[in-house]
C-alpha cells in the first residue's frame, strides 16, 4: 500500500513539474530592459575572465537581439551590452560589425558609428571596420558630405591587407560623386595598375566618366597619375583612355 502511495505521489509530482514547465510559452520575449553592469566593474572584479565575460554577454546580446527584433522591437539594453562586450574584449571584431545593423535597429546609428570608430582605433589593421564605417557614413551621414566621407573610409579600408578589390573601386566612384575628381582619378589609377583585367576595365570606365572628353584636357588631367603609377601601366592606361577621345 505504501509503495502504491509513493508511486502515485511521484507520478503526480512528475506530471505537475513537466506539465507546468512544458506548457509555458517558451518563445515569449523577455523583458527588454536587462541589467547590464558597467564594464569597469568586470574589469576590476575579474580581469582574468574579462574575455569570457565578454563572450557570455556576446552570446546574450545575439540572443537578446533575435528575441526582440522580430517581436516587440525593443532593444533598450543592446547598446549597453555591445559596449560591455567591446570594452572587455576590444579586439573581438564581430560585435563591432554586428552593431552596424543591430544598433541601427535599436535606433542608435550614431552609437553604431562611434562603436565602429572605437573598434577601428583598437584594430587599425582590420579592413572590415573602416568599410562598415564608410557604409554607415554613406547611409546615415548628411546628404552634402556623405559621399566624400564614405569614400574616405573606403579608401582607408582599400589600403588595408585582405580587403577585396571592389572596396577601392567603391571609394573612387564615391569620390567622383562627391566632386573630388582629382583624388578619384588617382584612385582609379591605383586600381588600374594593381588590378586584373576586370579591374582595369572598371578603372577605364570610371576614368572615362570623370575625365574631360577632349584629347588635350584629358591628357593634362592624366599627368598627376604619372607620378603614382609604374610607367608601363601609365602608358597602357593613356592608350586605353586617349584612343576614344575627340581631338
Amino acid at each position, binding site marked *: 500500500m505504501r509503495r502504491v502511495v509513493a508511486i502515485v505521489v511521484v507520478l503526480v509530482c512528475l506530471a505537475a513539474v513537466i506539465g507546468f514547465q512544458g506548457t509555458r510559452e517558451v518563445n515569449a520575449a523577455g523583458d527588454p530592459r536587462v541589467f547590464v553592469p558597467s564594464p569597469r566593474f568586470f574589469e*576590476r*572584479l575579474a*580581469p*582574468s575572465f574579462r574575455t569570457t565575460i565578454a563572450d557570455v554577454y556576446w552570446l546574450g546580446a*545575439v*540572443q537578446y537581439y533575435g528575441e526582440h527584433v522580430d517581436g516587440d522591437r525593443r532593444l533598450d539594453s543592446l547598446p549597453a551590452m555591445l559596449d560591455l562586450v567591446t570594452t572587455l*574584449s*576590444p579586439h*573581438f571584431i564581430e560585435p563591432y560589425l554586428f552593431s552596424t545593423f543591430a544598433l541601427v535597429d535599436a535606433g542608435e546609428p550614431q552609437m553604431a558609428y562611434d562603436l565602429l570608430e572605437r573598434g577601428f582605433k583598437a584594430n587599425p589593421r582590420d579592413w572590415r571596420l573602416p568599410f562598415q564605417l564608410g557604409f554607415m557614413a554613406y547611409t546615415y551621414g548628411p546628404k552634402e558630405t556623405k559621399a566624400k566621407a564614405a569614400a574616405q573610409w573606403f579608401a582607408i579600408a582599400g589600403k588595408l591587407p585582405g580587403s577585396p578589390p571592389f572596396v577601392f573601386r567603391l571609394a573612387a566612384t564615391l569620390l567622383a560623386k562627391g566632386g573630388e575628381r582629382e583624388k578619384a582619378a588617382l584612385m582609379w589609377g591605383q586600381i588600374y595598375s594593381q588590378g586584373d583585367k576586370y579591374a582595369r576595365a572598371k578603372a577605364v570606365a570610371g576614368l572615362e566618366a570623370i575625365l574631360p572628353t577632349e584629347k588635350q584636357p584629358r591628357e593634362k588631367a592624366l599627368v598627376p597619375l604619372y607620378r603614382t603609377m609604374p610607367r608601363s601601366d601609365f602608358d597602357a592606361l593613356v592608350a586605353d583612355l586617349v584612343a576614344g577621345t575627340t581631338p
Partner: protein
Amino acid sequence: MTRLYAVALNTFKETIRDRILGVIVVFALLMIVASLWLGSISLGQEARMMKDLGLVAVSLFGLVVAVFVGASLLHKEIEKRTVFVILSKPVGRAQFIFAKFLGLAVTLACVLAGMGLFLFLADWIVAGSPAPLLLAATALIYLQLLVIVAVTMALSTVTSTILASVLGITVFAAGQLSRSALSLTEFGQSAAMKGLAWVVYVVIPNLNAVDVKPAVVGESSPDWALIAAWAGYLGAYAVLALVLASWLFSRKEF
C-alpha cells in the same frame, strides 16, 4: 627519496582509483555538446567561444579536483588510520605532506593534460588551424592549481574537509582579484587601511599574473619573460604553503 616516491605513487594510485579521470570524459562530452550548441548561437564565433569557455571549464574542473581531493587527502589517511602505519615507518611528517602533494600533482597533471589536449584538438577541428597557446594556457592553469592544492592541504591540517574545500575555492577566487587588493591601497587616507590592503595583496597568491586566456583569443600578447618570473613566484608560494602545511601537520595530535 624512495619513501617519498612510494607515498606519492600510492597517493596517485589512490586518487586514480577514485575515478578522478572521469572528469576528462565529462569535460570532453561537455565540449562536444558546447561546440555544437555554440556553433548555432554565436554568429560564427564558435572557435573563439570554444577556446575561451573551454579554458574556463579546464580551470573549474581542475579546481574541483584540486580542492576536493586536496582537502580530503590527509583526512582520509587519518580517518582510515593508515597515517599511523605510514608514520610509524621512517617517514617524516614533512616528507609525508610533500609526497601526498606530489601524488596529487601527478594526478592533476594527467587530468589537465587530458582536458588540455582534448580542447586543443577540438579547437583545431572547429577553427581549422592549431592554437598552441591553448596548451601553454592549460600548463599555466595547472601551475595555479598546484598553488591551490598546496594551500588547501595546509588548510586541511587545521580545519575540516568541507571548510578546507570552501576556503580553497575562496583562495582561488581571491587569487584572481589579487590586483584589485593592490588598487585598494590607492584609495583612502588611512595608512592602516592602506597597509592592510597591501598585506592582503601580498598574502593572496597572485594567480591572475600567469593567466593568458585573453592572449589565447587575441586580446593581448603575452610577455613570456614576465610570466616565467610570475611562474617562479607561484612555485615559491606553493613551496611556502607546503612548508606551512608540514609545520601545522607536525604539531597535529591524532
